[in-house]
């Protein structure tokens, strides 16, 4: 009986262990699952990180976006998050699912070059959570968000390190080149820079010719080319997505 009892008393323990183990799994799974929802958030951040990595491979620029927040590190993320959402509202919902599956492959790739890039990316952000601690109940949530941001940035950084950014840029370049019906007035020596804004999915929403030594027809052809190329190819890793592109038209003949 006692045996049975002890056996019985085992059961709850086993059950408890099982349940806990299950919980752990679930929690872990959930944790990893929560990666999925963040995509919108991540994209938001990515967009804002824009100035950060203007120069491919230099994560520091992030600081450039922070300046306003300097005294109070905490607000940074929020201030960063705010602006982007306006433009993104429609995107987050849809892209999320597609983003999730694609997310995995890159992390696999990074191992080699990533480690180097990651640490450097982290320090910039770590200080942020530290300052405004304990009291806030939202803190945990926020911290998790930050973690996710970091993870996203790590992925982006490692993806960049893996040359995926260059691959994407090449894809966009190829597409715009095919779409550029070059007018006879576009002579050798032409050099025009346009600022392009795209949304998730690659749809071009704004083309502004900035510096250009071509005439009205050349500028027109360039504007046309970018719109004609819309939607632009998606990045191999959604974490790489950038709203703002700088496209330079400089025929090499």
């Amino acid at each position: 009986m006692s045996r049975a009892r002890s056996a019985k008393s085992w059961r709850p323990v086993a059950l408890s262990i099982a349940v806990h183990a299950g919980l752990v799994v679930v929690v872990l799974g959930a944790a990893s699952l929560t990666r999925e929802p963040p995509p919108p958030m991540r994209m938001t951040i990515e967009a804002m990180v824009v100035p950060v990595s203007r120069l491919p491979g230099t994560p520091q620029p992030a600081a450039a976006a922070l300046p306003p927040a300097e005294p109070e590190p905490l607000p940074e993320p929020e201030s960063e998050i705010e602006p982007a959402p306006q433009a993104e509202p429609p995107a987050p919902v849809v892209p999320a699912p597609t983003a999730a599956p694609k997310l995995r492959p890159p992390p696999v790739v990074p191992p080699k070059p990533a480690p180097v890039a990651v640490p450097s990316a982290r320090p910039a952000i770590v200080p942020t959570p530290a300052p405004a601690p304990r009291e806030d109940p939202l803190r945990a949530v926020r911290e998790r968000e930050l973690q996710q941001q970091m993870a996203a940035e790590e992925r982006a950084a490692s993806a960049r390190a893996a040359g995926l950014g260059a691959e994407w840029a090449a894809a966009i370049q190829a597409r715009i080149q095919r779409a550029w019906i070059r007018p006879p007035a576009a002579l050798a020596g032409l050099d025009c820079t346009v600022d392009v804004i795209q949304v998730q999915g690659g749809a071009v929403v704004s083309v502004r010719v900035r510096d250009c030594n071509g005439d009205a027809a050349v500028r027109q052809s360039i504007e046309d080319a970018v719109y004609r190329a819309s939607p632009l190819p998606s990045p191999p890793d959604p974490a790489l997505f950038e709203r703002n592109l700088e496209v330079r038209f400089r025929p090499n003949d």
Partner: protein
Amino acid sequence: MSDRGRRQWLLALCLNLSAAAANAQLRIEVTSGVVDPIPVAVAPLVAADAETLAALGTLDLAGIIRRDLESSGRFRALAPERMPADTSGSAALIAADWRARGVDYLVRGRVSREGLAGFAIDYELVGALVGQTLITERVVTPNQTSAWRNAAHRVADRVYERILGVRGAFATRVAYVSVDGAPPTQSYQLIVADADGEGPRVVLESRQPLMSPAWSPDGEWLAYVSFESGAAAIYVQQLRTGERRRVSARVGVNGAPAWAPDGQRMALTLSGSSGNLDLYLLELASQKLTRLTDDLAIDTEPVWSPDGVTLYFTSDRAGAPQVYRMRPGSSERPQRVTFGVGYAARPRVSPDGRQLAFVTRESGAFRIAIQELESGQVRTLTRGRLDESPSFAPNGALLIYAGRERGAATLATVSVDGLTGQRLRADRGEVRDPAWGPFAR
């Protein structure tokens, strides 16, 4: 701390950059493009009232504009039957719809009465990709078929220029010689027509050969060779008034007149009594004649560079015909220009002075070729058996030349990249010696 220092440094750096630059992350460089035709749609022009409708009759202005744009090879026009019935709406509103039809640009407009006897075409060029109106303009015309046609050509010119950045040459004219009948009862006509071959007008008719028409730089006069007196002589004739003058009727050959860009001088070929062709320079007002070449070989077919400094001409001084150049007034010897081909004759210089078109011979066939003067690179543009007499459009985009189709001589155009060719209509008989006129002033 160092982190903070770096941030400040970056902030300073950031402030130095323009806002736009600071936002751009991914940089992409475009180093090439394509030369595909640009898809356009030309909607039928709407007549504002019954009187306008009656004045237009069967004239299809949109069709003229559409064919002009297509003839350049730079545009591909939406087939009229695929044109939607309704083409109204603001540029921003309709842009997406036209984009979906694969149309990058839309030309639309209306025609209405203007003044006592005239009409006006109010047209608009819509950029469907950017969703903006790029041109709104009014072209006024008297009620004559030729004027209507000219107005449509002018619309095509403006559209062409706005999109390509190169002046359109649709509202220009070509001169050519038409030969009808068989010897000895042949009839020669000197004809001036619109650049699309429409609206031909006979400016001179003769039983004796007419040849080598050449435009004055202002487009008011034609110089040509006529055998009406039994021997070759060079005449100039004002198109508007019909006034004509004989400017050279010397012993032997008087040929190949070429008006200098200043309009005051003319290069020509004379044989004198020796029978050997050489180049001369004739001052039209004073009739002063200067010899330019003195060579035992044949020197002929002179043509001026656009700046009036250099003369290009054909000479067989090296055996086969080749193109040479010389500077009238300079003592330096003529220099050979064409090298890569065994035969090069009848040169013409592009309006920008950078290209030379000429007739070359390839496996027994005569074809039009073009040479980049700077690099010397040559490419053949046509594929006929007997293509001759190339002449540049004043915008340098096309060449008109005389070719043969089923044994009969016809006129054709070819784009300077050789990608687009077109035959012009020929009523009857043989047509030859086309000369593309200058821009209308």
